[in-house]
Structures are given as structure tokens and as C-alpha cells.
């Protein structure tokens, strides 16, 4: 199996790894870098549990080769806190009980941040539509929708 070298910035830290060429970005994050907060929930790019920000945009890291992220800025759920404080979107998820088992949560939070980057004040219909690539089996999305609206408001202020 041929190996390749990839280098990228992950959560602000420059990393350089040698991996089999077929390695997916999510495998690099989870298995090489130990960033297990990013999850794999399906193998057909439907569930969104593996979403990370690549150059500021939400990407399904199970559907991107590590090689494709060469040179990119990658932000995962582990990189959202600053000075030990939750990101406003993380805090909103906690305040509004927007997670139960927590498995889809990292992808949901990443998608929510991506949404707010595109629409600083999304309404309920916009939020629900934007989550079409993220499954949650626990919450019925009710509190996730509320949390994203509240998180967006907190990010504006």
C-alpha cells in the first residue's frame, strides 16, 4: 500500500503525517491524531456526524481523502473552546438540552457554526433546512433548532 505525506493545520497546530494514500480525512483525525471527537455514523455521506470545518466550511470528513485536505486549515470539535470556555454554540447546545447521547453532537455543532457563517440570524425554517445533512436519532431536533437560534444570537453579540 503506497503511502503519502500530508501536511495541514488542525485546530491551529501544524501537523505532518505519512499515511496510506486511501486514508480518509476522518481516519487521519481519529486514528493518527487521536481527535476522536469527530465521529463516523454512516458510510454514505448522509449522517453528518463526521463534519469538520475545512478552510471554514463544513465538510463530511468521511467523504474527503486526507490528501485532499493537504495544506488546509481544519477545525474540529476539539478546537472550538477558547481559554477553557465553550464556544457560544457549544454553550447554547448545553443550555437548550440539544444533545442526548452526544454522538451526532460534534457534527451538529460544526454545521451550526457553518450556518451562522452564512446567515448570522437564521430563522427556524432556515435552520431545519440547513440540517438536512445531519441526523440525530435522540432529540427530534426540537432543542437543536432552539440551540442553534440561541447560539447564533450569542455569536452576534
Amino acid at each position, binding site marked *: *500500500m503506497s503511502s503519502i505525506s500530508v501536511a495541514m493545520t488542525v485546530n491551529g497546530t501544524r501537523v505532518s503525517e505519512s499515511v*496510506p494514500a*486511501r486514508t480518509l480525512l476522518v481516519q487521519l483525525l*481519529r*486514528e493518527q491524531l487521536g*481527535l*476522536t*471527537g*469527530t*465521529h*463516523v*455514523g*454512516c*458510510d*454514505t455521506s*448522509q*449522517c453528518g*456526524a463526521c463534519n469538520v470545518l475545512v478552510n471554514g466550511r463544513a465538510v463530511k470528513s468521511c467523504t474527503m481523502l486526507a490528501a485532499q485536505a493537504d495544506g488546509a486549515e481544519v477545525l*474540529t*470539535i*476539539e478546537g*472550538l*473552546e477558547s481559554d477553557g470556555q*465553550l464556544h457560544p454554540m*457549544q454553550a447554547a*447546545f*448545553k*443550555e437548550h*438540552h440539544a*444533545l*442526548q*447521547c*452526544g*454522538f*451526532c*453532537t*460534534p457534527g451538529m*455543532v460544526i454545521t451550526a457554526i457553518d450556518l451562522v457563517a452564512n446567515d448570522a440570524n437564521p430563522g*427556524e*425554517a432556515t*435552520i*431545519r*433546512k440547513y*440540517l*438536512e445533512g*445531519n*441526523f*440525530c*436519532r*435522540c*432529540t*427530534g*431536533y*426540537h*432543542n*437543536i*433548532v432552539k440551540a442553534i437560534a440561541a447560539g447564533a444570537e450569542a455569536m452576534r453579540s
Partner: protein
Amino acid sequence: MADNGIGASVRRVEDDRFLTGRGTFTDDIDRPGQSHAWIVRSPHANAKIKSIDIAKAAAAEGVLAVFTGADMAADEVGSLPCGWDITNRDGSAMKTPPHPPLAVDQARHVGDQVALVIAESRALARDAAELVAIDYEPLAAVTATAAANKPGAPQVWDEIPDNLCYDSGWGDEAATDAAFKQAAHVTTLELINSRIIPNPIEPRVAIGEYDAGNGKHTLYTTSQNPHVIRLLMGPFVLGLAEHKLRVVAPDVGGGFGSKIFHYAEEAIVTWAAKKVGRPVKWTAERSEAFVSDAHGRDHVTTAELALDRGAKFLGFRVRITANMGAYLSTFSTSVPSFFCTSVLGGVYTTPAVYAQIKAVFTNTVPVDAYRGAGRAEANYQLERVVDKAARELGIDPVELRRRNLIPSSAMPYMTPMALEYDSGDFAANMDACLKAADYAGFEQRRAAAAKQGKLRGIGLSVYVEAAGLGPSHLAGKLGAHAGLYESAEVRVHPTGSVTVFTGSHSHGQGHETTFAQVVSEQLGVPLESIEIVHGDTDLIPFGMGTFGSRSIAVGGSAIMVACDKVIAKGKKIAAHMLEAEEANIAFADGVFSDSASNQTLTLGDIALSAYVPHNYPLDSLEPGLDETAFYDPPNFTYPNGCFICEVEIDEETGAVAVVSFTAVDDFGTVINPMVVAGQVHGGVTQGIGQALLENCTYDGDSGQLTTGSYMDYTLPRADDLPTFAVEHNEIPCAHNPIGAKGCGEAGATGSTAAVINAVINALAPLGIEQLDMPATPHVVWRAMQAAKAAAAE
């Protein structure tokens, strides 16, 4: 009430780790020297395995070993057990076929485990799996529930005629037949409870590890009940005694029933780890989950309701054919039988109820409990028939229900299925729900929708479940091989902080918060000084785990009893330290006080004395402050409530939109209203999913699963759902110390009928009386076209 005690919407303590990526799910665990397993699965629904050639795979890059069913059989690995025996109507025993972890001579469903490849990486194991050459002889297969028991159907098991696992009867058949004979009206409904694939977002994972130094095995697994897995897999499958087997279920990403059962892969990796001398990890891909996680529901039912001239229910009779799949999963047999039939009386005074249940084998994935197991199927049948009766008799469905509800004054109420409801005010739930949903204003909304080209419908469902599983003596009489108590150990540390070891398991329910609230309330200890530990058989005394809405009602009650023991011992210590009479010692808010002297000691003072017993009654009391309780409930709990759903149907496309959903539930004492509402949202969503979106289908000829990915199986998305209105009507459970009835399954139990009743209500003006789930746009559109064509003739 303690500040963060019972009744407070405390924000969850577990959220910080999940929100920052610090959770530890099973796939996040890597063990030193770990190898990786890939399981070769049958592509055929039914096929003889004529030969397996592993030579090429065994020689492939990075491969450590390749095993087949013959290797496991040679090691005398046993059959995956079914934990619940059902007796046939003629008194004979049900049929229990073998279930080897790896199939030996025949594969019986698409996805059946046939061979195991272990390699240095998952990718290499998967590559090598392609090289395992299996010579299959495909056989005819049967997948449809209604077809399995028909003469001439393909046989799943040669030794089990007509694919019949059991044919059991529940209730009083003669009394029910008599009720139908004197009925003024009988409403009959044939319906299907569609097949569901549970789909927790975390796929199953199992890691086996063997320590040759002490002969001990460890299994890390995505389980709702690690002790049950230790018991089933250890002594019964692998021949391992419990003291040499540790089962760990760390953070688990949702279960919904599907992670209760003992799965083949758990036994396979545990066995294989010793064979290869290295830890073995298996992680399911979603595609594998679709063909290996136990499915849910899948009943074909004829339901009949007998009414007198006053529209009082005289009798309810159902005949159900339930699909077991190809093998009997752990609790499969109990679901259509005990769990479904026990609550067929529902919230009504119906005096006579009878159910005949036939369970059949098919060439499909095993079927077992899914959120609301059995009770959801019962409620769906009953509430659908009641609505149909109301239409046939020209009575408002609310009025028909009102005439037949069990009044709260009749509690405790003995049902014809031998359950004793301890408490509940079903009429109050319904009235509150009607008000919250503005039932009275519906016709105006219907008229407004019609102007927009939308057919609007409203449907309700009143429900009661048997939850809080359950009284062990009753379970034993009903065929269960297990007890249904729960354990708790409350360990007060020397300086007064507390660790609780619970046999319940949290996979989204929030126990680390809600159980701590219970302890905080009982012991007066602040929440931040309480740690809830679960999911490790080496740490927890024992545990039956989490299913059947039992965690707070049974596990929480065990914690209450253990706290009471701590307090009782603390009083003895306090009496000694204060030189007081024990009878004069009271305990409240974390403080022991002597009513005679007004002297006080904190729980921390007592704990320190218990562990540093210099001034301590050592002649009559052991040191330490660490108490264990096993709580066995005297009765089931009976969560109950009312749901009202409103839908709008697009006449052009048949698309159904849920425009509002209102729930009023009686879960008894509510520990954390925020968490409980979240359970309702999730449960209702699973019901809406089943009613409108989700459907597991097999191709009838090939036996292939035709909904084997998220591109074919429609999981509910955010924009398929409304905002929910949820209210609680708290009537404490009368027989457990915590007063809680459980809330995990209610949403899924009561919602399917409310949604389909609303759809039928919207379509009834077109003459449509019956639709089966899921009411997809295709199903609804076809029904509308057929109805319009019929009307035009």
C-alpha cells in the same frame, strides 16, 4: 427541595465532554497491540455453505488469521441464547433453533456472519475478506411476515414446520368470544405494523482483549446492559465464568432497544482475541448495521373491537403474526407476546381481551425490542380500531374514548390481562391535551387549509404502557430467564463526596445528571460532589441495564433505597458521637440532628468518623459508609398520556406534513423536566418516522434488503418535523419510593396511532378508511387516486 434536586431542570453534567469531543465511545478506544476484524457476511437470504476456502485471504498482506464457524464449533462455542420462553396454546414449548455466532453450514439471512478476517488494519482485513472464497448453494427464501406460515412457504429451518416459532394465546378467549356474540357492533381492522431499523447514530463496536497473565477477558461493547452481556456471553456462549470476564460499555451513542441484545460480534471478538493473542476490534459500518442490528416491530394484525348499543367496549380481540427473523434474538419472543398483549386493554374498561400471537421465522435479520417494544404495537392497533369504530358509529373519537376510559376513581385497576394499574387520570390527560392542542378550533383550521389546497386532519391517541420492568417473580412466571431488579451502590467518601455505582446504563438519557439529582435530594450533598458511575462490570455490583423505561423507576429506586441505608447507618453513628438516643436523631438536608440536645453533625462529619473510627461504636457497627441495594419492583409502572397530531396533506403530491404535535404525559414524579421533555421529543419523532417515513423492505424473490442505506431508508430529518408541545401531568407512582413511572418509550408508544389517525381523518372525506405505515407521499397519492377513481365510477 435541594437546589438541584428532584424537579429541577438541571443542565446536564455529561454535556461538557460530549460538546468538546472528550466523550469516550467504544470506537474511540484503541488497545495496545490491537488488531482489526472484518466479518464476511452472506450475500444470500438462504443458502447452504458448501465450502469455504480461506487460503488466499490467510496469505494476504497484514492478515493474522481467518476463522469460520467450524473453528468456533471446534472450540465448543455455544449458541447465542434467547432469554424468554413462550408456551404454545396447546401447552407445548416454542421452537428455539441454534444461533451460532458464525454460521456453520447454512446462512439464513442477508448479512448473516459467515467468516472472520483479522488483520493489522481494518482496511487490510476488509481487503482480505474479498479473498475468502465461499461456495454457496442458494435456496428459496421467505421474508414476508404474512407468507411465512403459509403452506408451501420456503423453510428457514428444516426442523421447524411452517416456520412457526410459537402460537400462543393471551387473555380469556371464551369470555372474549362471548362478548363478541352479544355485541351490537363489531369494528374490524387489518393492519401492518411496519418493520423498523433502529439506527442509533453510533454503529455497534466490539473490542475483545485477553490477558494471558491472569486469564481474564475484557469486552468493550456498545451495550445498554453490560452485565446482561457478561452473563449471556460468558457462561452460556463462551464458557467463561463471570470473575474472568469484564464487560465495559462506555459512552454509548443511542440504543433504542437495539443495543440490549447479545450480538454475535461480541462473542466473536472475545473468542478471537485469545486465539490471536492480541486485542481484536470490530466496528460496524452503517451498511453492516442495516443487516446485523436487530430490527423492530413487523406485525401483521387483525384487530376486532366489540361494542354495545351505548358504544361501550365489550371486547377486544387481535390475531397477530409477528416476524422473528431467521434466529431468536435475546428478548425477541417476549415482544409480540407479553409486552404487546399485556396492555391491549389500554386505558379502557373493556372487560374481555384476547390475543392470539403466531411468531414466525423468515430469512431476515432477527427482530427484537425497539423503543416501546410490544406496547407500541398494542397501542397502534387499539387506537386505530377505536378511531375506525368512531367513524362507523358516527361518534366523535374523543367522545367514544371518553365513554370508555377507566376513571381515576377506579385506581388501582385490575385489567383483564392481569395487570394492576396503580395510578393515572386518563381523562385529565385527554382534557389537558385537547385544550393545549385547541381541538375545539380544528374545524376552522381545516377550512383555512382547504383554501390553500391542503387536506388537514387531526388525530389522537391515548396510551398506557407497562414500563419500569419489572417484578422478577412475574417475569419468571411469564417465561423470562432473568430477574428484573436493579442494583445501586452509594459510596460516601471520608470527606463527604459521593460516588454512585448504578446497574442502569446511560446512552443519552442523562443519568449522570438525573441520578445525581436524586442523591442530592436524598443526602443533601451538592450536585458537584456526586459522581454517577455506570457501564463497567468490574465496578458495578450487578445490573440489568437500561430498557423498558426502567432506569429511573427501578434503578432510581435502588439508589433511593441505598441512600436510605446510608442515612440509617449515619443515624447510628451520629447517636454514638452525640451520645444521644438513635430514635432522637433526624436527618434532613445533609445534617443529622439530635432533637433532645439540638446538636448537629453533617454527613461529612459522619463519613469521616466512619472511615477514621476513633470515636465510633465498633462493638456494634462496622466502619465505612458504603451501602448497596438491589431493588425489585412490586409491580410494573404505567406511564400514560394523550397525544394529538395535526397534519396537512398536499392534494397534488400526497406529501404529509406534521403541522403540530401535542403531548400530555403522566410519568409520575419528574426528576428533570428538561430531560423528560427531551425524551418525549425523541420518542415522538421515532413514532412520526415510523408513521410517515421509515420502512424496512425486503425483495420478496431474492430476499435482499432493499432499504440498506440512508439513501433508501428514510430517517427523520429536522425539516420533516414540527416544534412539539409537551406537558406533564404528574401523578406519582404508588408503589416505588421515587414515584416515577419512566418516560423513555412513551413518545414512540403513543405517537404512531395519533399520526395515522390524523392522516385518515384528513383523507376520510375522500372515502379513505385505511392506510398502513409509512404514509409516504407515494402511498397517500395512490390512495387518493384510487379513491377519486372509485368515486367517479
